[in-house]
């Protein structure tokens, strides 16, 4: 860097002005609201009524609330169900697509298309597919003589059903990111490995995977965030039911805030979610950086 230009004031001011529009918007519509939420979490506030200070009462209530723990467990269950599978299958698909095969772009398109479809549409289509009386799945089952299954109404099957829908959406996303990651690995590394006598599996393990690490970290972080924040699909397909089988954290927050009108408690739940998300992400990023 040459010496004279960074003394100009315009250069010092410029970055601040450039990031200003974004920062102002983030501040107004995200940061301030989240602080408002933090604030409200210490009150007992029903949306139409007045607010009463409650100190940490909401948080105490939260830890004593069975449904809270259930929703936390459901969220973890959902995340464990969706993240590894979508990443592994995405990687597998990327590896398969990373060769000269006919119709490559077509396949890529098909696997990625669910990502661009809105979650509202996805929820509606899949709810219809899962419909116990008129849906395609039960129809196919009935053709082989199996009784209709209540995909979304069964305590045990509801969450797996939502997970499957999620996989439909997320596999393509992981696939495409991995594909680019794969294509960035220099051929020379593979050639060197072959010279050293590596077979396919060893090539994968010792060249591909390590080179994909940054990609993997990124996909993992994003997928976990997505998993913990799931709402739209659950809301459209099961409403958190049956019972609390698919009540995930954000769904529970929504219910408490809007169906039961307990804004204070919902804000406490939301604050909790935000904090653990931050912690998780920081941990993942740290781990990602360390093992370089």
């Amino acid at each position, binding site marked *: 860097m040459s010496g004279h230009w960074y003394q*100009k*004031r*315009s250069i010092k001011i*410029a970055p601040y*002005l450039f990031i200003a*529009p974004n920062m102002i918007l983030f501040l107004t519509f995200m940061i301030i609201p989240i602080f408002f939420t933090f604030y409200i979490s210490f009150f007992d506030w*029903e*949306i*139409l*009524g007045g607010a009463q200070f409650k100190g940490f009462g909401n948080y105490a209530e939260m830890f004593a609330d069975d449904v809270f723990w259930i929703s936390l467990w459901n969220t973890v269950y959902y995340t464990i169900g969706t993240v590894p599978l979508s990443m592994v299958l995405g990687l597998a698909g990327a590896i398969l697509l990373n060769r000269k095969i006919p119709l490559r772009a077509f396949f890529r398109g098909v696997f990625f298309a669910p990502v661009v479809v809105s979650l509202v549409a996805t929820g509606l289509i899949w*709810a219809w597919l899962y419909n*116990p*009386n*008129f849906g395609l799945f039960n129809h196919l089952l009935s053709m082989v003589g199996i009784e*209709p299954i*209540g995909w*979304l*109404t*069964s*305590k045990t099957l509801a969450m797996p059903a939502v997970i499957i829908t999620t996989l439909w959406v997320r596999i393509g996303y992981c696939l495409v990111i991995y594909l680019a990651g794969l294509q960035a690995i220099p051929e020379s590394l593979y050639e060197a490995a072959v010279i050293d006598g590596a077979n396919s599996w060893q090539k994968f393990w010792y060249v591909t995977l390590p080179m994909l690490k940054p990609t993997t970290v990124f996909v993992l972080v994003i997928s976990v965030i997505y998993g913990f924040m799931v709402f739209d699909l659950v809301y459209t*397909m*099961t*409403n*958190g*039911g*049956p*019972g609390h*089988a698919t009540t995930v954290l954000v769904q529970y927050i929504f219910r408490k805030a*809007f*169906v*039961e*009108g307990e804004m204070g408690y919902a804000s406490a739940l939301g604050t909790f979610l935000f904090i653990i998300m931050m912690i998780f992400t920081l941990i993942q990023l740290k781990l990602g950086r360390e093992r370089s």
Partner: protein
Amino acid sequence: MAGSFVRKMMTGVVTFAMAGALLAGCAQERSGGTPSSGSTNQSAGANKEKETIEFVYWAGAGGEEEAFRDLVAKFEAEHPDIKVNAQQVPSPSSSDYYTKIQTRIAGNDAPDVFRIQYQKIGEFASKKALLDVTDLFAEDKENFNQSLLTAVSFEDKIYGLPHHTDTLAVFYNKTYMDQLGVEPPSKLEDAWTWGEFLEVAKMIQDKGLAQYGLAFNWKESSAYRSLPFFFQNGASLATDDFTKGNVETEEAIQTLAFLQNMFQTVMSPGNSMKGTEDFNLLFTSGTAGMLINGNWMIPRWEQEMADYEWGVTYMPQNKSMASDMGGNALAIPKNSKHAEAAKKFLAFMGEPENMKLFVEKGLFLPGRTDIEGPFEYNVKDPAMMDLFIEQSTTVPEKLAQTVTMSEFSKANQALAEALEMLFTQGVTPEDAAKTLNAKLDEIFGGK
């Protein structure tokens, strides 16, 4: 150099602001205009002559949808200085109707008039969210159904117009009944007992006529529709003085057991409190042989029950008869910006002539008691409406009082949770009763 840089930034900011203003200008013209739906409402923003009030409502069937539209047009014709921005939205049982309304009221962006269930209005009134409209009833009070008037009152002031009431009965698939050789009761005193009712439902399934014997139009926000069964068995939700829960009685537990059995043996698993199954579709597609629903649905069946013949019979009875007190009121939020015009609309909807028009098209029972018959219900078979009218006389007073308490909203929720646990989690009736009672004690005792 700094000068030209700053100048360039300023240009950028000004352009940005101008673009925003331009957009806002577009928006000003856009908001308030309704394209393509046939009406020609214009924005009130720039228009000094007409005042616009926003009326939010839902329509459960074509009859009431048309009725609302006709009455809005009539109101506008009679009040050339007021325009009504009628917003039809999905019903509370299929959307978060009240969420939006509450948020808007709390955020000072309230609609001017909105439709609200009697089971909900107590909550809004007690939270001081509604406009006091007692003066509209100064001369007319005795001419309204007193139960309904109680529902819309709070601390001796009236907060809404008791627009109409309705009740539940049992719709049945006549084609199936004929095949079974069953003739559903046509007299109130012959109404099926619980046992007989369940038997018919089971028969429909056993003979392979339909997947399910019964569907029910209950869902979270309508959990109270299960109350008739409690009262049919001599049970109730609250003690007589309404200070405590009353569901740990033998009668109540029997009712819970019956409901659980009913759900698990003759109903679709998706027809629970949180279920997303479309109960009406179950009936119209012949997947369920019977459907408990209300009088306003008749226009829908006339249209949609193309493949089957259908009819309606009385609610089942056990120790006594009971049905649901349904219906809706119209209310004005306290912070409406057009209170006077909104009151005029409310008064208009409450006039005998207009109420008559509404109930005839929508197939309801009017909130007023002084409307002169005969009612020309827009229905193919007038006997059906007569059945509902007769059924509505079995609504127990205690049921009416229970659902119109100002805390009922919360009790409704507790009931919904208990039923969901009962239906989908296999909780025993005793345990469900215990949990429910504890919650009810809290709610009624004044939390």
